[in-house]
């Protein structure tokens, strides 16, 4: 018997705003514009929204500040904070809220002006007191330590990590909305300025502005909207640590558990997935998540991404918008992988459109490889 949440809710509206640079705009301005675009896409009004799901690096009580700004009085609110993976996790909480009648129209939303407000993440994170004396650079040092260990343990190379950045750039070149679309070679990545060994500047994601919004309703009414519904087939969450020293094994993330839970709820397997959107804050992420989600064996992620396998025309379409590495990355990136997966399943992505995808997998990352959330989405054909 299938899980009661499998396909019980669907995305009927999506919106992006301010991706790249949105000078002079506050995070909630950008969030509201994305919300406007998502409502427009769904043919709904702001007053229809009665459930809000959001996260922020700027507001201590994100749902309260966001609902106040939008002038809505939601029946159900969720500001669950699991870093950049929050917005992927919100699909599970929204599905439960819709299923149990806590709300009828769920709005998942995010906005950030990280680039034009100074180029640095305005983190509300508390200092990690046992790490602070050593001045790790947050968050890159954590990912660098994971990459170094992966290289040591499995022979992964900087060249293979560079190939992740090159593949992302090749997808970005097919996406007119991507921020970085210049030619990029493996040598460019290898020769870029070293920041925290073994990660160089071009192993790191962009710092942009941007916002996104996703509107979910119960599947029973999903066909009453202008666009082809995209169904939430399954979501799994997992976290094993907060600070990097507490990660049990620097080469294996909690995506092992999150992915397993999502696959189980969705009732699908890896080889049925047509398109994959992974949270690529750094090049090592893509390698780790492909392994942990079961698209290749542990330790074989480097070989898997080598020589264009995840590039356009490769064996597995991964990060088809250009990823956090080349498309957009405003502080927290989770909502953008969700939106790209939905766009791919709807079709009409132009040059970067994957050939008739029916199932998409999204994996959000939060903290320092800490929180992992996997969502599997599908078209009506796989309900």
């Amino acid at each position: 018997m299938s899980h009661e949440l499998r396909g019980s809710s669907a995305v009927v509206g999506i919106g992006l705003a301010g991706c790249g640079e949105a000078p002079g705009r506050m995070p909630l301005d950008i969030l509201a514009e994305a919300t406007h675009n998502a409502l427009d896409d769904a043919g709904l009004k702001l007053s229809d929204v009665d459930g809000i799901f959001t996260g922020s690096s700027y507001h201590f009580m994100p749902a309260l500040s966001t609902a106040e700004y939008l002038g809505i009085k939601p029946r159900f609110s969720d500001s669950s904070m699991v870093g950049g993976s929050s917005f992927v996790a919100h699909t599970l909480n929204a599905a439960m809220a819709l299923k149990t009648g806590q709300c009828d129209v769920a709005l998942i939303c995010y906005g950030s002006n990280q680039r034009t407000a100074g180029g640095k993440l305005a983190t509300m994170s508390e200092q990690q007191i046992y790490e602070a004396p050593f001045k790790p650079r947050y968050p890159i040092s954590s990912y660098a330590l994971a990459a170094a260990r992966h290289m040591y343990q499995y022979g992964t190379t900087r060249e293979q990590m560079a190939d992740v950045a090159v593949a992302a750039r090749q997808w970005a070149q097919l996406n007119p909305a991507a921020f970085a679309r210049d030619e990029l070679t493996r040598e460019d990545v290898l020769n870029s300025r070293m920041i925290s060994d073994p990660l160089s500047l071009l192993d790191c994601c962009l710092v942009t502005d941007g916002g996104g919004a996703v509107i979910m309703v119960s599947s029973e009414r999903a066909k009453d909207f202008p666009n082809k519904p995209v169904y939430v087939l399954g979501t799994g969450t997992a976290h094993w640590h907060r600070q990097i020293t507490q990660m049990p094994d620097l080469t294996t993330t909690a995506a092992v558990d999150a992915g397993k839970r999502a696959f189980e709820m969705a009732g699908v397997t890896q080889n049925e997935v047509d398109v994959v959107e992974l949270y690529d804050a750094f090049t090592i992420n893509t390698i780790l998540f492909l392994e942990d989600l079961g698209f290749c064996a542990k330790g074989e992620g480097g070989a898997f991404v080598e020589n264009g396998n995840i590039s356009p025309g490769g064996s597995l379409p991964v990060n088809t918008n250009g990823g956090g590495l080349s498309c957009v990355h405003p502080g927290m990136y989770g909502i953008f992988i969700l939106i790209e997966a939905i766009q791919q399943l709807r079709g009409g992505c132009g040059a970067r459109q994957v050939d008739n995808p029916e199932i998409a997998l999204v994996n959000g990352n939060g903290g320092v490889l800490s929180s992992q959330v996997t969502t599997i989405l599908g078209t009506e054909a796989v309900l």
Partner: protein
Amino acid sequence: MSSTDDRFNGPGPDQIYYNYLREDNFSLPQCQDCHEFHFYPRVVCPHCGSFNLEWKTLSGKGEVYSTTTIRRKPERGGHYNVCHVTLEEGPRLMSRVEGVDSLDVKIGDKVTAVINKDSDDPFVTFTPVQGD
């Protein structure tokens, strides 16, 4: 209300840890049920959930589990090491290896703890084991 259980009275594990370091003693709690050590110090064993812990002095021996060099311009102090060291007793902590160029620190290197008391809250760094 104060606890009648001594384990929850007086300074917490964070204070105890620093107090030991101030006395040149590198100690961590060991679980009396599963016998695992843990870092950072807590009132509960994160391995098995037991609250039955005792502080034990460590050997100070460890091995580099992973390492990175944070690049910084010479005029800003130059590049420096950030690493994870796995202690002989099991726990892993963030630290730096001193007395050697950060780029020469390798995973698997054997290291020894040194207590740094330059600041109010002491911390532990490591030096390479001679002849390693």
